[in-house]
Each structure stands twice: as C-alpha cells, then as structure tokens.
C-alpha cells in the first residue's frame, strides 16, 4: 500500500510517459529507435502494473508485469533487431494518408474525443479519475496503433503499430476491466505469431507490402481494378 496521492501522481506521470512514447512511435523514422521506444513503452506499462500491484495487491498484476517485461521488452525487440540486421531497410520514410505532424494532431484530437465520449459511457466510474484516464489512454493508444498500421508503409513498422495497439488493450485492461490471465497469455502468443509473420514477409519480399501486392497480382490471386 502506498499513499493515495503519491499513487495518483505516479500513475499520472506514467500516463504522460506513455503518451510521449506513443507520439514518438508515430513520428520516428529510424527503425532501431522505433524498437527501442516500443521496448520502453512496454517497460512503462510493466512498471505501471507493478505499481498497481503494490496498491491493490492482486497477484495477477504481477504476473502481467513479468510477462510484459520478458516478452515485450526483451524478446520481441531483440527479435526485431535481429530481423533488422538481415534486411537492407534501416528506415521507414514512407507515409500514406497522414504525415507525421498530422498524425500527432489527429491523435491529440482523438484523445479528446475518446475522453469526451468515454466519460458518457463510463457512468459511475467518473469519480475514480486514474481508472478513467487509464481507460481513455488505453483506447487512444489502441487507435493510435491502428493509425500507425495504416499510415506507415513497411511491414516491420506495421507490426510495431499492431504491438502498440496491444499495449493499448493491456493498458485498458489494467484499469477498466479485469482480464483473465489466460487471455493475456493468449494475446502474447498472438503477438509472437505476428512478429514471426512480419519477419517472414520482411525477408521474403523486400519489406514492403506493395511489392507483395504486385507479386500476388502477377499470380492472379489478388484482384485489383
């Protein structure tokens, strides 16, 4: 048990850090630092889970923190770095639909929208502000992950978008809904699958989905107008 005000301050601070890392993920062009930022974001989440374990004492939270640290801050970034070494791509400079600056603006607006409508949805949870904020930022983070998926071109960056989405879901589940631990584990297995698939795609076809399209087009599998 820690003091309630201190707990609130710590949590709020961690929220700010998460938002910062999210903004960096959206704008960062170098792939190496992208992976590092992702690792840092996952670490912050793990810290948050530990803080909450200290506050509430649920053992589940500790397991989640452990799983996050092992898989998301150590294993996945390492794997991605490994992949990076073997492909010629070092940076992702291509953006579709949104430029980094407009992505940042839109995500800011997004957080407001989510906050505004989520307060309506949350109802009686309004008085517990850190919980509510956790939910809001979790959803926004998931949506920002989605924005990364559609605004970045390279498969590797897309997979980072997916991982960010998952982080948002984790954040949401930490604060708003008690997710069973088994589901958490399953999600992590999903993540690993995604990473492996992304690696296969990245190796096989020069790391951009567009080339993948062209190949499929040639085979007649993918019908485009």
């Amino acid at each position, binding site marked *: 048990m820690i003091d309630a005000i201190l707990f609130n301050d710590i949590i709020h601070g961690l929220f700010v850090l998460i938002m910062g890392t999210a903004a960096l993920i959206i704008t960062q062009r170098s792939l190496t630092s992208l992976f590092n930022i992702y690792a840092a974001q996952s670490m912050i989440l793990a810290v948050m889970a530990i803080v909450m374990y200290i506050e509430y004492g649920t053992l589940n939270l500790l397991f989640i923190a452990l799983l996050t640290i092992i898989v998301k801050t150590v294993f996945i970034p390492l794997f991605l770095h490994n992949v990076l070494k073997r492909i010629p791509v070092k940076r992702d400079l291509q953006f579709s*639909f949104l430029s980094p600056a407009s992505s940042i603006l839109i995500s800011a607006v997004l957080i407001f*929208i989510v906050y505004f*409508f989520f307060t*309506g*949805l949350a109802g009686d949870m309004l008085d517990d502000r850190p919980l509510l904020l956790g939910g809001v930022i979790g959803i926004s983070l998931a949506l920002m992950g989605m924005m990364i*998926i*559609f*605004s970045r071109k390279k498969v590797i960056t897309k997979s980072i978008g997916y991982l960010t989405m998952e982080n948002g879901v984790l954040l949401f589940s930490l604060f708003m809904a008690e997710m069973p631990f088994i589901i958490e584990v399953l999600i992590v297995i999903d993540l690993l699958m995604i990473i492996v698939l992304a690696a296969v795609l990245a190796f096989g076809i020069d790391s951009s989905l567009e080339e993948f*399209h062209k190949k499929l087009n040639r085979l007649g599998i993918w019908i*485009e107008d």
Partner: protein
Amino acid sequence: METLFLSGCSLLLLACVLPFIARITPGKTARRIALFVLLSGLACITTASLICFLSGAECIRLLYSLTPELVFDIHFDSLSSFFISLIGFVSFCTALYSFNYIEHGGTEKRRLVLTALLPLFILSMIMVVAADNMFGFLFFWEIMSISSFLLMMYDREKAETQKAGIFYFVMTQFGTLFLFIAFLLIYRYTNTFDIKATDALPQVVKSFAFIAIFIGFGTKAGIIPFHKWLPYAHSVAPSNVSALMSGVMLKVAIYGLCRFAFDVLQPELWWGFVLLAFGTVSALLGVIYALKEHDLKKLLAYHSIENIGIIVVGLGLYVIFNYYGLEIPANLSLVGALFHTLNHAVFKSLLFMTAGSVVQATGTRNIEKMGGLVKKMPVTAVLFLIGSCAISALPPLNGFASEIMIFQAYLESFELNNPVVEIVMVIGLAAFALMSALAAACFVKAFGVVFLAKPRSREAGKAREVSFGMLAGPAILALTCIVLGVFSFQIISGIGFDLPVPNMLPVSILLLLIILIFAGLLKLFHAPVRISETWGCGIAKQTPAMEYTATGFSEPIVTIFRLIFRTKKSNEKEYFDSAESITKRTEAKITTFKFFEERIYMPLAHLFMKIAAFISQKHNKDLETFMVYAFVTIVLLLVTAGFWL
C-alpha cells in the same frame, strides 16, 4: 383424406430422387418411372383436395416444428383446397405431356435433372398453398422460385436464356423481399407467424403491409409494371415448364394475394381501386404487347399478363362491392376471378403445351416461319384452336364463362350511387371490353399464321404430328375447357353460390344443333367442288412469301396504338443517279419502343451498377485503406455510442 394428401406428397418427393437413385436402368426408364410416380402422387393430391373442397371440410395438421414459432404445417380450407386441386390437375396433365416431350433435346444428364426438378417444383407450389405458417409459406415459396429458375435454365448455354434467367432471378428475389417485409410487419403486431385473420395492425401499418404484399405477389404474378421477367422466362423455358409456370405458378401468387390481402388483413376501399387500376392496365397492355409479338411463346406469356390482369380486376371489384355492402356483385366478381384463375390455368397450359409441340416440330418460335401446320398436325391444331377460343372468351367455352361474370359485376356498378366510383367503373368496363376484343384479334393472328395457309419455311413444311403422349395431356385440358364452359352454371350452383350466371348448357346444345344442321345442309346441298389455283394478281408462280404475315396482320393495330408502342417507321433509300430514279439500296424499319425495359428497368439497373462499381472500387484496395475504414468506423461507433448512452 389427410393421409391421401400426405402420401401424395411423399410420392412426389420420391419422384424427385428417383432419377438419381435409379442410375442402373437406362435413363429413359428411370424418367418414365419417376413420371409415373409423379402422376400417381398428383392423382392422390388432387383427389384429396377435391374431396376437401367439395365437402367443405377444414383440416389442419402439424408436419414439423423447427421452433414453436417456425413450423411447417398444412391447412386446408375451401380457398387452399381449390388452388391445390387446380395445381394438381394442371400439373397432372403437364406431367402426362412431359413423358414424350422430355425425351427431345438436351443431354441425358439434363433430362434426368429436369425430371427430378419437375416434382420438386410442383410439390413446392402445393406446399406454399397448403402452408399455414408464414415461415413454411416463404420456405416453399423460395424453393418454388429456385426450382423454377433451375428448370427455366434448361438451355443455359444460350445468351437469351442467361438474360432471361438473370431477369427472372432478380425479379423473383425482389418480390420475395417485399413478402418478407409484409410478413415481418404482420408478425410485429400479432406476435405469431400463423396465417390467420387479424385486425391487430394499425391503419397505416396495414396499408404498408398491403403495398408490400401487392408488390411481392404482383411481381410473381406478372402484374404490370413488375411483369418484365415473364415474357423472357416463359419463352426460353422448356414448354412443359412454361406451361407450369404460366398455368400454375402465377396462380400461386394469386392465391397469396387472396389469402393475405383478403383473409389475413381486412381490405379497405382504396385497395380495391389499386387492384382495379393495376389489373386494367395489365390486362390492356398485356394484350396490346401480345399483338405485336411474333414469338409464339412470348405471345402466350403476354397473354398470361393479360389474364392475370383480368383476375386482379375481379379481385378489385370484389373489394369495392364488398365495401359498399353489395353482396351479389361482390360474390360474382370474386367467384368470377377465382373461376377465371382455374380457367386460365387450364387453357394457358393447354396453349403452352400445344405451342411446345409446334415449336418442337418446326424448330423455331417465330410464327412468321410457321404456317400450314393444320394439315401436318391436325390434332394439335384442333387443341390449339380450342385453347384459342377459350382464351378469346368465345362462348360456350370456359374463358367466356368467367369473363362474363366479371362483366356482369361491372354492369351491376350502377347500384353504387357514387358518381366518382361509377365513372371509374365505366372507364374500367370500356378498357375491359377493348381488351377482350384485342385478345380475340391476337389469337386470330396466332392461329391463322401458325396453322393456316402454306408453310412459310422448309422446317414448317417438314413438321410432323407429335406422338400420342404429347396429345393426351392437352386433350384432357381441352376437354376440361369445354366442360367448364358448358356446365359453368351447374358447377357454380353445385358449389353453393346462387349467382346470376347464364346457363350455357341450352345455348351450347342449340349451338351444336345449328352446327349439325348447317353441316348436314352443306353436305346435302353443296355445290360441286372445283380445285384450282388461287388468283395471284397475275403473278405466275406463287410462293409462301406472298402470304399474309403476322406483321401485316398486327400492323393496323400497332399503328392505332402507336402511342403505346412508340412505333417509329423509317424508310431510307439510296439512289444511283441524281434524279433519284434508280434505287441502289432501300431500308425500311418499324421499331417499337420497350417502354418498361428502357425507361424503368434499365435505368434502375444502371443505377445499381453504378453503386456497385463505386463500392467495388472502394473495397478493392490495399491494407492501408482497409485499416483507415476500420479506424474511421471505430471512431464513429465511439462517437455514436457516446451520444446515445
């Protein structure tokens, strides 16, 4: 009686699978056995429903219940047993005709499929009429649509068939959509899918339900402007199938209209006028379009539209008279409409089957290439003549017997004491009379060009009379035409209606006597027969090309109704010299404008094609675009959820 009906149904089911399980025997034997089973099943069903109809008994039986709400059950009352007898009888004759017809054309496999689908189609129509639950009704309704579609696609390689198939399939689904709407509306207020009388619906909802029912059944029945599939589908289908579709399937739609508009919902006055207006337009336009048609089966299909129009007019009159409390004209028009339903089923399937024989013998549907068939196919010609007389409403045949009832109902409208309604009635009566005259003209053309004069093509010259099997079915129907006409008064009073219907028996006896006396006198005092060449305006050698053509016959009528046909006549000439005296090339054309197709159906289709192209262009995109769609959707969902909750 229930047992008889159900065993009939199971025989039909057996006939569906028989062509496939009896693979060992040669295909022809398997088909014969299946058709025999079909015939016996239909005999059972017809007997059972006739007993039910004549005794006035009601019977309800649960067959299978999917959930307590969604059940398959059968319910016989006088209306449904009347329609089932009709379906059973006409299908019986068609099945008889199919024995030999099926053996011509197509591959062995397709013939087997045709034999298997035929009982399924008939069974589904019977079950639609027997259903006492909207779920069962729609279930069999869809089976009926799909099996008829498959039957229709017999010659699926032909572009014509494909076009007709798409037309039919889209239209039939369009109609079913409206039926779904109507049934769900009724369910919303009654909380039951059972088909039974209800007054739980508010006025506005009831009107909407009626409109949906009218469009739904109207599409299937071929009421103008929902008719366009009918001429296409009927002309490309095998003739036994078009006999069933035109003779029987359209009647199932009429049954649905009667059942849901008059029995489940209580009709209001304006429904009567809607039915009257659409019926009159269908009857008149149907026959006018039929007149310019030179495809024998399309011509018959347009006549189906006309006759459905007559039936719908009868139903409309019933609603109007019923509203004003005039019992006799109301009954007259309702019984007239239902009697005409029976009559149309009989003579239209007769005509389609004989037309099928003719088409098979000559290998073409174009009547301009026929002619002279009365000498080659005398029995078919006589049967076709009886059908033509019946459909043209010549006394003492059955077409006359039912149309006269509707005419009488029209004439009783002076009792209404409402000037507006009376004026509407007089206009309707005038249109009705015009329609009857034009129908007769049309069949003079059809019979004259197909059977009389000399063959217009080599194929027609080589035509031979069809086999006995293909004459037996139509012959039964022709006999029914005569019986239903001559004994119409006795039949209607036998069922229990005391209506002012003319007694045709003495008239027919008189007519027969006159004919006999005339024939006898002719035989006794005839002038010596002189056989010689017809005078051909001095031209030495006469060819069939000089005969009166169908185009020539209908030309005056097409000219009179050029407003409807939008006929355009063009005549272009090119000359060798400047004085325009030696012609190099001439081209004359008479084109008619297909109003409904070019102004309603095609623009609608183009609109949907545009929407579809837009959507498919939007959805054939890359991963990023899909993610944007998902993203936008989620944000929008969040916003709407935030607003609502």
